């Protein structure tokens, strides 16, 4: 490896090969892509087989992946949505950072670190990994859940907090190094003015500019412009001593409701993915295996300890801010690692001689190991805790005091709601069961009494008052659950009248087998009604269109009954189907004849 150029080229190949080998393997074992990258990093790094030595540079380059990531996140958050997150961002964010900083500073001081070093460690350990957290949420599609939102808000706040942390860093080194307050105020004003003007100019200029670039119809130029956009935002922010990621995020928000949102997203996505991969590789590379082997107990103790502590603190924060209980554990774990900013802060601290190199390296290894631990913990969570939770979630549905409503509606989506509203309008009270928490919140706000729970469970049905009810409406869309409930009700509560929604023809047959009081195909009536409108649109008279539809309906229902009785015998079934079609034709033909001369017998 002589020339610098060929060295870079070689490095690139090493990265790609290691990724291509490790990531698919890791995914195959269900460990997720992140762990694959991390392991690849450990292997090729300076502490592994030493294929790559310059960790710092790689990490610096790859941090741009995080920047691109934040840009994409920004694209999905228009200012209005962002505004609605202000409480999680500033409330939960502050709570998370302050609590963690206090706890970790306290511990460090307690075990004999100097006060500046303790504060520094406290700050570094309060931060979590944006790249890791968001990537995990992304892979699991949980960015939009309440907990996902909270995770994101906290990570965003940390990006803001880092600015403050970096600026007090020199203060910790020695009291004097800091710039005078005057200079600080000038700097602050300058920063605010620049950001504001960028935001205003962006708002006004960016869209016309994008439109112009897009009108050239050269895809790579659009991609180039997208990248340029993100990079310049990031660069500007770095120039202002603000985190690059935050700048990119702002850029994304600026373009969130532009028509180019999706184009930008698809262009940036692959770059983001690769660079993030590189980032995780470089994290893996900074795991110093030698330090681990020297004092494994200390290191693992620290890793486990900080992970557990952070999780506990997050649990408290999430609890105070009333996150859904079922999501609380996951919320706490996803951001329990110590994040990449810790590398920056610890690196800077080493430069400022706040602590010696061994301490620095040990800390960095601990940080890297907490990062490495995250995907493992998430894996563990999925396999064990989530399962336990699903079970335990079943025993904590809403507590329904024995209801005495005449009607129970199971499933309160679009279908059940119409029935419920009709009853409600006629002052018939119904007890409603549904298992979609978001839905329930919404409906409760509209004044419906909706209970959360799995309607296919006997005890829940009993507390919903099924013994005293007269009618059970099964409006559940999932065919299996729907049938399960029908069977259950039929078996245990023979007094009930049961009306069920049917998804498709097979479902209808299965419901006919249950011999219930009413079966309605969910789309049949609506389609028929539209058929009537179409006939009318073609100039048919209204009443005749309606009559034709009614004939069609009657015929169709008869055919279904027939087909149901013949469905066990395929040959008869097919013959019946053919005959049914012919019957229908004949019927309409007769109707046509009849109607050309209605009442002709009277013409005498």
């Amino acid at each position: 490896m002589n020339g610098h150029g060929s060295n870079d080229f070689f490095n690139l190949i090493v990265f790609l090969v290691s990724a291509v080998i490790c990531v698919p393997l890791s995914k195959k074992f269900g460990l997720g892509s992140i762990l694959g990258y991390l392991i690849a990093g450990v292997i090729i790094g300076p502490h592994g087989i030493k294929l790559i030595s310059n960790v710092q540079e790689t990490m610096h380059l790859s941090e741009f992946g995080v920047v691109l990531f934040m840009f994409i996140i920004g694209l999905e958050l228009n200012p209005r949505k962002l505004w609605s997150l202000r409480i999680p961002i500033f409330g939960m964010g502050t709570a998370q950072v302050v609590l963690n900083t206090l706890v970790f500073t306290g511990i460090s001081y307690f075990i004999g670190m100097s006060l500046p070093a303790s504060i520094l460690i406290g700050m570094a350990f309060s931060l979590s990994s944006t790249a890791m957290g968001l990537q995990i949420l992304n892979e699991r599609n949980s960015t939009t859940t309440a907990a996902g939102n909270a995770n994101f808000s906290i990570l965003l706040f940390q990006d803001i907090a880092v600015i403050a942390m970096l600026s007090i860093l020199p203060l910790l080194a020695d009291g004097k190094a800091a710039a005078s307050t005057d200079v600080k105020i000038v700097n602050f004003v300058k920063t605010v003015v620049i950001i504001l003007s960028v935001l205003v100019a962006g708002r006004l200029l960016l869209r016309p500019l994008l439109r112009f670039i897009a009108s050239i119809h050269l895809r790579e130029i659009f991609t180039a412009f997208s990248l340029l956009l993100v990079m310049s935002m990031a660069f500007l922010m770095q120039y202002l001593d603000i985190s690059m990621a935050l700048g990119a995020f702002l850029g994304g928000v600026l373009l969130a409701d532009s028509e180019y949102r999706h184009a930008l997203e698809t262009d940036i996505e692959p770059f983001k993915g690769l660079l993030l991969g590189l980032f995780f590789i470089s994290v893996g590379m900074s795991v110093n295996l030698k330090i681990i082997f020297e004092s494994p107990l200390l290191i693992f103790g620290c890793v486990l300890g900080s992970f557990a502590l952070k999780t506990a603190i997050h649990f408290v924060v999430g609890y105070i801010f009333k996150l859904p209980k079922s999501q609380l554990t996951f919320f706490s774990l996803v951001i329990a690692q110590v994040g990449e900013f810790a590398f920056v802060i610890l690196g800077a601290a080493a430069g400022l001689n706040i602590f010696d190199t061994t301490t620095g390296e040990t800390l960095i290894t601990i940080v890297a190991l907490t990062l490495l631990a995250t995907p493992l913990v998430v894996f563990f969570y999925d396999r064990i805790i989530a399962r336990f939770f699903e079970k335990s979630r079943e025993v904590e549905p809403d507590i329904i005091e024995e209801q005495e409503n005449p009607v129970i509606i199971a499933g309160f989506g679009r279908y059940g709601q119409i029935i419920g509203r009709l009853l409600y309008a006629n002052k018939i009270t119904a007890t409603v069961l549904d298992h979609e928490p978001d839905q329930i919140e919404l409906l409760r706000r509209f004044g419906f009494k909706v209970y959360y729970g799995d309607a296919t469970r006997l005890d829940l049905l009993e507390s919903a008052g099924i013994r005293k009810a007269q009618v059970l409406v099964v409006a559940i869309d999932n065919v299996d659950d729907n049938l399960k409930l029908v069977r259950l009700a039929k078996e245990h509560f023979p007094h009930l009248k049961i009306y069920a929604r049917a998804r498709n023809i097979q479902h209808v047959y299965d419901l006919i087998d249950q011999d219930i009081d009413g079966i309605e195909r969910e789309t049949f009536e609506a389609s028929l009604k539209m058929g009537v409108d179409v006939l009318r649109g073609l100039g048919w008279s209204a009443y005749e269109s309606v009559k034709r539809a009614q004939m069609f309906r009657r015929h169709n229902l008869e055919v279904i009954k027939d087909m149901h009785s013949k469905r066990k015998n395929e040959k008869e079934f097919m013959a019946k189907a053919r005959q049914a079609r012919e019957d229908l034709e004949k019927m309409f033909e007769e109707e046509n004849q009849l109607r050309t001369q209605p009442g002709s017998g009277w013409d005498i």
Partner: protein
Amino acid sequence: MAHPYLNRSVANKIICGHVKELAHVTFHDLYETYPYFSIDIKKEQEILRKHDLIVFQHPFYWNNMPPLLKLWQDEVLETGFAYGENGKELAGKEFLLSITTGGSADTYTPEGQNKFPVTDFMRSYEQMCSLCGMKWNPPHVLHSSRQNGHDEIYVHANKLKDLMSTFAERGHL
């Protein structure tokens, strides 16, 4: 206007064509408006309030009105609106029955198929008028509606048109 299959009609279609577009006339096709037989009672009453002459135009079915018109009668002419205490909304309005029959005038004789004069079958209409305080006018009848040539239907339709115009003029005086 009540005819379930106006698109297949001969007589009623021509008649409607004549009077539909007249100024001061609101042509209201019940079967077209309420093919599902769900009548908007409030709206119907509003239409009645706004007019001085009410015309029933329909084919004679079993010597009676088509079922939707019957339903209309049952639902729209409520107590408190059309009759009974405070039910004075129709009082003073003019009423005209205009029908088409398949049978010839001869069928409405003691020897004919219908045995009774056609006006005998209109007693319930007449009684509706008297209960609601509407003025009953000599009914306008087209016999042999299917056997007639179009010319006779045209003559009949024009007569109805003139009749309605006279009412309109009278109303203006």
